[in-house]
């Protein structure tokens, strides 16, 4: 007899995605769907998609979905959650969306301790619009709007979102994970599930920053891109739990 040890989660629609080959957005989608499956909350979950490569996320999750304006997913999620306090609300946002144009909404959803979960895809670039600099692009990184490499004197410094969000009293759980290796993916999975659990327990705002790849705009193959996460991103964006007021530590 055989047992299925891995298959598509129910909460992930059985459709092809528009993501580029090897783009890890797809992995994170699956992890979110797995968390929804594991917690059995698909029927009361409302997801909020951003503007960015994951704009079509509304086509990929089996729960109710809203497509927000660029950067405003946290505000939209707040509106939903305040109407439906017992629902499970998550946003899925890129780095441009979350910490460039959406900075104010992000900080305030944290300060308010809004009972929602944010999945934050840090790929150090604007994927959707074709490779411009993100607030999280690394110093020296070449993008189409930092063609000579990001210089702190001109384009400023990359922002560490977890460190920033951890300073806010309303942030309950805040962790940085990566999806560059199978062990890291498994950790990411646990963290995402815990973030949803934090919300369900009404403990406050939870955010998981996922170091992710953009092979297309980094100009690397998918495997090289995973390598770049390891060699260049993680050193600047250390993995780990930055805040946890839930009193458990299963995520570590």
């Amino acid at each position, binding site marked *: *007899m055989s047992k299925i*040890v*891995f298959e*598509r989660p129910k909460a992930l629609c059985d459709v092809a995605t528009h*993501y580029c080959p090897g783009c890890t957005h*797809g992995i994170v989608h699956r992890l979110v769907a797995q968390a929804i499956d594991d917690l059995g909350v698909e029927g009361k979950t409302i997801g909020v998609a951003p503007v960015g490569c994951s704009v079509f996320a509304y086509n990929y999750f089996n729960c109710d979905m809203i497509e927000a304006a660029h950067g405003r997913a946290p505000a939209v999620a707040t509106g939903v959650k305040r109407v439906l306090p017992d629902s499970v609300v998550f946003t899925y946002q890129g780095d441009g969306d979350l910490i460039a144009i959406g900075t104010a909404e992000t900080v305030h959803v944290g300060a308010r301790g809004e009972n929602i979960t944010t999945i934050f895809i840090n790929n150090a670039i604007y994927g959707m619009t074709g490779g411009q600099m993100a607030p999280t692009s690394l110093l020296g990184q070449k993008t189409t709007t930092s063609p000579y490499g990001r210089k702190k004197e001109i384009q400023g410094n990359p922002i560490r979102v977890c460190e920033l969000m951890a300073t806010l009293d309303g942030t309950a759980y805040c962790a940085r994970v990566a999806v560059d*290796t199978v062990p890291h993916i498994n950790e990411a999975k646990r963290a995402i599930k815990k973030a949803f659990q934090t919300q369900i327990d009404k403990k406050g705002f939870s955010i998981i920053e996922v170091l992710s790849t953009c092979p297309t705009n980094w100009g690397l193959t998918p495997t090289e891109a995973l390598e770049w996460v390891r060699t260049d991103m993680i050193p600047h964006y250390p993995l780990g739990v930055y805040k946890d007021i839930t009193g458990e530590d299963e995520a570590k």
Partner: protein
Amino acid sequence: MNKVTFNVERCKGCGLCVSVCPKKILELGENLNSKGYHPSRIKDQEKCIACAMCAVICPDTVITVEKDV
């Protein structure tokens, strides 16, 4: 026997599964699927340990893994 199956039409030929398989039994095929990608395939099903690493890293949920129990 452990078994990995591929939803071939969904595969984008990114090669991530190939790169993580501890048994090095995956490869990208020569044929194209209708999207124009070379889909991944398994060279030697026998050797598969159903570790699901390939499936875990696949961004497109192409792979289902069954373990003999």
